[in-house]
């Protein structure tokens, strides 16, 4: 990913910067110019809780270029509490412990590196939700 492209999407990837549609009140992530639910054009900025659950998952044995150091790793569709769904890597969990419906929370981690000298891309991953001590 080029440096300007990385920079443009930084708020989404570092902090799940999202929108709420002023017309239908649905949450939108990633931000768009037109609401995918009602096609209205006006939205307001909002932040997501970063909490959600695993909708589906897969273990990647053949990692794409830049992701080799993590292979094999688990990718998931995460349904966020506010409604939007994201594609993200799961972290801090063994592949065999992942279940559909498992509560997860967002963390910021290193995503990929473009070679030895290349830029490092950071962004969201999800880990099993940490329970508060009773």
């Amino acid at each position: 990913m080029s440096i300007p492209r990385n920079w443009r999407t930084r708020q989404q990837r570092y902090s799940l910067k999202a929108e709420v549609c002023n017309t239908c009140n649905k949450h939108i992530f990633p931000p768009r110019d037109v609401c995918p639910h009602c096609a209205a054009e006006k939205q307001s900025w909002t932040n997501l809780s970063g909490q959600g659950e695993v909708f589906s998952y897969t273990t990647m044995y053949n990692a794409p270029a830049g992701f080799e150091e993590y292979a094999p790793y688990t990718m998931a569709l995460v349904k966020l509490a506010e409604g939007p769904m994201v594609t993200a890597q799961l972290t801090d969990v063994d592949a065999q412990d992942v279940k559909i419906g498992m509560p997860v929370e967002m963390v910021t981690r290193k995503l990929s590196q473009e070679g030895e000298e290349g830029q490092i891309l950071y962004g969201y991953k999800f880990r099993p939700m940490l329970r508060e001590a009773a």
Partner: protein
Amino acid sequence: MRDVVIIGVGQTRVEEHWGKSLRHMAHDAVMAAMKDAGIETADALYVGNMLSGELGGQEHVGALVADFIGLRGIEAMKVEAACASGAAALRVGMFAVASGIHDVVMVCGVEKMTDAVGDEVTSGLATAADQEYEVSQGISFVGLNALLMRRYMHQFDVKHEHFAGFAVNAHKNGANNPNAMFQSPIKAETYLRASMIADPINLMDSSPVCDGAACVILAPADGYRARAKAHILASAVATDSLAIHDRRDPLTLDAVALSSQKAYAQARITPTDVDLFEVHDAFTIMAALSLEAAGFAPRGRGVCMAVDNEIGIEGRLPISTMGGLKSRGHPVGATGVYQIVEVVAQLTGQAGKNQVQGARIGMAQNIGGSGATVITHILGGV
């Protein structure tokens, strides 16, 4: 608008064509189709291709192929819609003939994948997905389909082994197709033992990386009726979000439903009138989801058509009749044209051991990405 017919077809065998470049493969397919149609020139050439730039550093293949086949000067351009590029080129060719702008038009789908190494092909195929919000997270194209398959198995209480019938059927049909990449049948045990790529998707759930080219020649029905091999009864495109996570419901291929319904309306038929279906079985899960959204099976039951063997040549709805993407092979931008060549073979009684008896109406559906572009063509026999 004028009715459009197909007057010639040609194809190369799908395989690893180390001895042939993209231009040579396109040449072979176009020349075979021109010979079949009995023509020596055409008004225009539309080339369906997805990865020539990404894998070969070569864009601009419309002019490249026109020149290479000895038709320097004619109108030519490349049409791209990811893995649906072949059907997209056919649709552009149809526009040209139906509108009266051109009379005789050539549509060639061609893809050269095996000049690149595995990593490059993986990245190339992933260009069909959302770069900023899917690919940048570390998912591959196989991985995206694995996410769909896992959820499908969970939500509809289906086991992985239930998908075996799709791969077994494809290989059984491919065994009788001299142009197929894989020409040997497989047993269900082969499917169960295949090595995992992105679980639950194993090697036998997925179509292979390969090279190939196919071509069809279009003309107006008026003036070419006597030479027609098949009528194009419907041509319909629908779209959805590139990213699976942006879909209304990831397990419903809305663009398949919309594209199919538009096509049925144009052809004035219902799904029960379809005698055979060239489905976009790039992965077994895509076959199941397509059968459902196209109206051949209820939601969550597409896989049952494989379990109950309703998809064989003698079945309720024969699919992948010449091997499909799994066994004939999936040279991505060429696949949509191969499907049309195969439907024409069925409608003209040229399908050999795989002939669907009495086939009158054949449907082909070519999908770009994991369901973001869906192009449906329905052909009728003459």
